[in-house]
């Protein structure tokens, strides 16, 4: 009901009073008709005109924005017709572009739209440069696929913006459109001649990334289609604890505590195999680390390292902590060569590396050993063998390396080989100061004869009394200065 109608309809006291006054005046003046009308108008003007305010326009009603029907005359997006991938599909070529200024879909910046035109593959073309006749196009005119809102035209509009691939004399109609928040000449063969059309500012599609977000901002910083990630695939989506976006070559993951971080290439593929953000590694905490021609990515609960000759492998949980303490890919162990595996007892885990191994048990923790000792350890049955799980990281000595285990130790001596020292012998060896003690390094494997078990060292021997099981250390000569162990 308008203000005027409200005044005319004597439903409110105000209306009735004014109406009555007008009528009284009208009966008492020769110009009563005029005065009645004036009073009504005056009253109408006195009413708050807020009711006359225009009804607000319909809000942006769908994710596709305006002009999304086939009859709207616009062209569909490549993400709609190219399996969610925001790039020119096979059989098409970028032929031109324009920008729409102040696009919220690009965080208020310019939004660039690239036309992907069909090729003139069906016939030899003649005529002037630009667009070939529709009979020569590599596709036929139709509307966007059903079941979604981007119903715009596909391969219908025979128009060429003209900044891209100018070496191609003729192209066909526009197959679809690519969108970008970075200029198209950074990733397509296009010139910088600017064309502007703000009418398309809010055009979108369900399989495009969606509204501006932390992830979109990071993708923009990286260079979008021209970045290592490549074109987007489908829209951004929620994951437990955050959000994610897929790209042809990788993924961007966002969590408030980690920010937007990307994974790319083989690392991204392995991450996907492990369940991405909801998997054992959690969210990435850093952008990819470049190590010469290799890569690594760090996650909340581990790491994935990739080497072109080895592949991509994760190092998880406590093993990742130990790997980090050992210097990661640039440390003594180098790159991982296996995924984490279950030990033979079913309780522990181990990972192998180019130059060593890390073994972990919930009761002992994770410790690493270098290549020489690891090789001997594996030959002796590794975690399931007599030595059991490691109890300390490998120690580096001037002429030897040593790792301690639940059941003894392995000592690798330069130019001499590896030697194990088991149980009571190892206990006695430890008591005598180990590799830096008076006995020095082992010079032979354990022996057993009529006198019992014994093992020879540089400066002495440890023997085990067969009747008592006790070990005794005996020295050949006075002790000599030894090297300090290098951890």
């Amino acid at each position, binding site marked *: 009901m308008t203000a005027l109608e409200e005044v005319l309809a004597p439903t409110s*006291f*105000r209306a009735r*009073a*004014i109406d009555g*006054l*007008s009528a009284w*005046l009208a009966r008492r003046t020769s*110009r009563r008709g*005029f*005065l009645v009308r*004036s*009073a009504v*108008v*005056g*009253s109408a003007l*006195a009413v708050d005109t807020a009711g006359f305010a225009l009804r607000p326009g319909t809000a942006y009603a769908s994710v596709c924005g305006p002009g999304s029907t086939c009859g709207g005359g616009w062209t569909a997006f490549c993400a709609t017709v190219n399996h969610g991938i925001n790039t020119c599909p096979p059989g098409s070529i970028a032929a031109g572009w324009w920008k729409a200024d102040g696009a919220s879909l690009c965080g208020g910046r310019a939004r660039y739209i690239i036309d992907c035109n069909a090729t003139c593959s069906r016939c030899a073309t003649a005529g002037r440069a630009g667009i070939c006749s529709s009979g020569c196009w590599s596709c036929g005119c139709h509307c966007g696929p059903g079941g979604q809102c981007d119903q715009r035209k596909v391969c219908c509009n025979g128009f060429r913006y003209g900044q891209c691939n100018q070496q191609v004399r003729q192209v066909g109609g526009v197959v679809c459109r690519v969108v970008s928040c970075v200029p198209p000449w950074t990733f397509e063969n296009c010139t910088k001649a600017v064309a502007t059309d703000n009418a398309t500012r809010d055009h979108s599609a369900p399989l495009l990334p969606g509204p501006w977000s932390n992830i979109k901002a990071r993708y923009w910083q990286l260079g979008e289609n021209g970045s290592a990630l490549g074109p987007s695939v489908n829209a951004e989506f929620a994951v437990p604890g955050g959000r994610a976006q897929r790209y042809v070559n990788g993924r961007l993951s966002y969590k408030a505590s980690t920010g937007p971080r990307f994974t790319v290439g083989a690392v991204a593929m392995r991450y996907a195999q492990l369940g991405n953000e909801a998997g054992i590694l959690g969210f990435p905490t850093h952008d990819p680390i470049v190590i010469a021609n290799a890569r690594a990515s760090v996650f909340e609960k581990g790491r994935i390292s990739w080497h072109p000759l080895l592949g991509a492998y994760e190092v998880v949980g406590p093993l990742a902590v130990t790997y980090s303490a050992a210097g990661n890919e640039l440390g003594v162990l180098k790159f991982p060569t296996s995924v984490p595996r279950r030990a033979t007892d079913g309780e522990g885990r181990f990972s192998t590396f180019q130059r060593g191994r890390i073994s972990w048990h919930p009761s002992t923790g994770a410790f690493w050993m270098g290549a020489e000792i690891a090789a001997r350890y594996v030959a002796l049955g590794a975690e399931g063998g007599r030595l059991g799980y490691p109890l300390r990281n490998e120690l580096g000595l001037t002429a030897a390396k040593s790792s301690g285990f639940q059941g003894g130790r392995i000592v690798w001596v330069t130019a001499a080989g590896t030697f194990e020292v088991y149980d009571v012998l190892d206990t006695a060896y430890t008591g005598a100061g180990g590799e830096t003690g008076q006995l020095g390094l082992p010079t032979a494997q354990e022996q057993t004869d009529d006198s019992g078990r014994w093992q020879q060292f540089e400066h002495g021997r440890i023997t085990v009394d067969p009747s008592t099981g006790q070990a005794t250390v005996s020295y050949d000569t006075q002790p000599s200065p030894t090297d300090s162990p290098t951890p």
Partner: protein
Amino acid sequence: MTTAVVALGVAVLLLSVLVAGLLRSHAEILKALHELGAGLELDKDGPVSVTIDGVSTPRTGDVSVPDSISGETLDGELLALSLLGQDTLVAFLSSGCSTCQEFWTAFRDDPPLPAGARLVVVTRGPGEESPSALEKRRPSSVPLLMSDETWEAFGVPGSPYFAYVDAAGRLVGEGSGASWQQVLDLLQQSRADALRRPSRRGPDRDDEVLRDAGIDRDSPSLWEAG
């Protein structure tokens, strides 16, 4: 509450009487002016000018106007409009003249115009006008040109000033007014007078349009299938 309502009604009544009085005196003034022969009337020998207190004095005598006008827009574009093909009321305004303010206000939102006519506002060029002041007064749907050249071509003596050019490109009326409604009323009157004159349109005029388009009576395109 009742007192307030009654007081409101009395105020309304008084205002209404005042408005009625003003309207009546206004009508009487207009009637008097018409009886005096004032208004934008078509004259076979040329335009007839109207002068109201406080506004510019129009010129007398024949004035030729260009076929098109051009100038700079507030968006930084160069805009050119053909004065042929449609009746055009050219309003010469400035941001600084007090009498112009009513016209700026009237032109802000889709001002009413005689059927078939369009309105164009022309100000002085950027050297003599303030683009920022014009931006505040800018009409939403009326073209605005900044053009010293157009002022000179029309021999505009000052602002506000109006020139009415018919579709044939003839200056059929010019002058000033104190209000837009006044100008509109006089314009409508002059158009009504113009309708009584014989129209120039007809077969000769149609041939003229075709020739302008490069099509003479022997052009094969006239005989091609659509």
